[in-house]
């Protein structure tokens, strides 16, 4: 068992992949800078060479497309976008190309690249440096969407993503990097078999979440335990394709559902979760209206006083749960 934080867990996944798979390479902005992506890629360029760790011009679109093309030629590229917001220039390569090539060409062309897209917000950086757009990608058939919330998943799902023959959008959030955990040796997982996980059993309410919202949910559940409320926590992990059966079972049991999401509310993935549950649970089994907590329908403000209110906090979730089910 080795002590890791979320950041070093990502780093160790990179190291594992680069050591064991010569067809893995990494391309993106900031890869030769020591500070661009936190501690998640430190010294990779020095250890694996600048031909496999490629820092690039400010050309998100072509660099992403190049990774798609390299994957078609048998490589396993990882494109890094230090902020998801910058990746918006690369949408064609992701949505029109990577996600569709397998289907359009009869399953014969398989762009097995991984796009590591970092949610990087706060610090008064504002609307163009803050977005969490996972809902968009969950709406793109052909793309696997992965959002690790734990230290173990940060490492293991990155490896599984890169080894997957499909295009994967792997989304990490810098607000998760300081979590710590001891990890056992690496086991290669089959990404297509990964599903949402019940990370804590409970009876009173099911809380479904992804990424940083799952960290908030875990902390909330701790607090609520002290108030004798038992939360069942489900960490989505994989948003696309979306496997919902265990969530449905859980809600059928707890009879209460709260979904927490790091995106802005309208059109967020939280709606998908509630909808899919509601379509499938026994009618009349709920005790309360399902609820969701996500960001206001507004771009991220910069001013510290506004920013502080804008993002979700443990206390917001706690309060919502209490309002829903406190007797």
């Amino acid at each position: 068992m080795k002590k890791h934080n979320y950041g070093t867990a990502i780093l160790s996944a990179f190291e594992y992949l680069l050591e064991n798979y010569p067809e893995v390479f990494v391309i993106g902005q900031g890869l030769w800078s020591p500070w661009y992506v936190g501690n998640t890629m430190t010294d990779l360029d020095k250890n694996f060479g600048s031909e496999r760790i490629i820092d690039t011009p400010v050309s998100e679109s072509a660099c992403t497309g190049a990774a798609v093309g390299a994957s078609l030629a048998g490589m396993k590229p990882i494109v890094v976008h230090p902020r998801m917001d910058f990746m918006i220039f690369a949408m064609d390569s992701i949505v029109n190309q990577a996600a569709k090539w397998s289907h359009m060409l009869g399953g014969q062309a398989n762009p097995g690249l991984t796009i590591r897209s970092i949610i990087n917000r706060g610090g008064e950086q504002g609307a163009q440096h803050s977005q969490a757009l996972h809902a968009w990608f969950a709406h793109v058939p052909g793309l696997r969407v992965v959002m690790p919330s734990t230290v173990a998943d940060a490492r293991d799902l990155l490896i599984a993503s890169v080894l997957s023959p499909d295009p994967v959008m792997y989304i990490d959030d810098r607000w998760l990097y300081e979590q710590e955990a001891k990890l056992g040796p690496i086991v290669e997982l089959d990404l297509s078999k990964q599903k949402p996980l019940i990370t804590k059993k409970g009876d009173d309410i099911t809380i479904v979440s992804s990424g940083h919202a799952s960290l908030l949910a875990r902390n909330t559940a701790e607090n609520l335990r002290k108030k004798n409320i038992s939360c069942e926590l489900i960490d989505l992990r994989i948003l696309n394709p979306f496997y919902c059966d265990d969530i449905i079972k859980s809600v059928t049991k707890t009879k209460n559902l709260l979904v927490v999401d790091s995106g802005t509310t309208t059109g967020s993935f939280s709606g998908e979760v509630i909808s899919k549950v509601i379509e499938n649970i026994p009618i009349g089994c709920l005790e309360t209206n399902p609820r969701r907590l996500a960001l206001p329908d507004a771009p991220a403000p910069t001013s510290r006083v506004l920013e502080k209110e804008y993002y979700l906090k443990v206390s917001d979730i706690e309060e919502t749960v209490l309002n829903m089910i406190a007797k």
Partner: protein
Amino acid sequence: MEKNLKNLSNPKNFNHPVSIENIDKNILIEMIKSMILIRKTEQQLAIGRKTGLIGGPVHLGAGQEAIAVGISQSLTATDRVFGAHRSHSHLLALNPNFYKLFAEVLGKKTGFSKGMGGSMHLFDQQNGFYGSVPIVAGTVSLAVGAAMAAKMQNKKDIGLAYIGDGAVEEGVVHESFNLAKIQNAPMLFVIENNLFASHMHISLRQTSNMTARFAEANSIPYEIVDGNDVCEIYHTAKKQIDEMRDGGGPRFIELVTYRHYGHVDWRDDIDVGVDRSLDDVSNWKDRDPITRLSKSLVNNGIWTIEEENSYCEEIDNKIFAAWDKAINDPYPEQESTLNYVFASKKSKS
């Protein structure tokens, strides 16, 4: 740098028989056969579309065959070739299997893309054709990545993208020029400059009709060639590709040409072009790449009109049979729609 194609874009020039000097007789015959085969295949597609047997759009490249044919002579099955919406010739120049093309265009399971792609989404990786898709400029950066991969894999293969003059207006193409050069990737940018993007003449869209100015700006060695002279194309591409395989980095070749049909489907489309006249079309037909090579071959006694006619007849018969077969082929199963979404799904089933 001079930034005008001048005579090259004037159909009244360059309509003489092409010079066949320094090309092996067998290659010349291969090339004319390939061009004829592609022309006739597309004529069949035009008919199929007109009669409604083909349900989707076909973007025909008749008049532009010399480009893919001349270049493909220097390609191998492990090169990485990418096309776009007008890519029948790009594929057929690597693999003349028109039966699989017919099947694909008709949406049949036996087609190049298993019936999942139609005319605009073609695949034949075994022969170096990595894929074509209809988002304009959508494959250019992909080809650069495949070229970068060749370098990382220590292979002598090259990446190649066929790019229209319209596609050059998409920003990602400029990013791709820079990326290919800074990476010294073995990437051949092939610009098929047919002077039009659908209805719009290049003079309405760009500040010069010579796209090679962007190669110059990115320090990519380039050549500008009569796109209807298969022999000059052959020589130029061969030289460039040899240099690339030797580690010379990216190259750029601009080929000036014209399409006989309208932008899409079987009509001449003089009706829908802005700045496309019937006169131009007919002058460009005089500059036809097949006729020009044919004349040279006959003049030089390399083959006769009779040989040409008998080859044409042979191809006509084969096309007739292949079309018939494709028409009767099965469609994909309904499960295909879901089964091809993910590779991993497919491999499980």
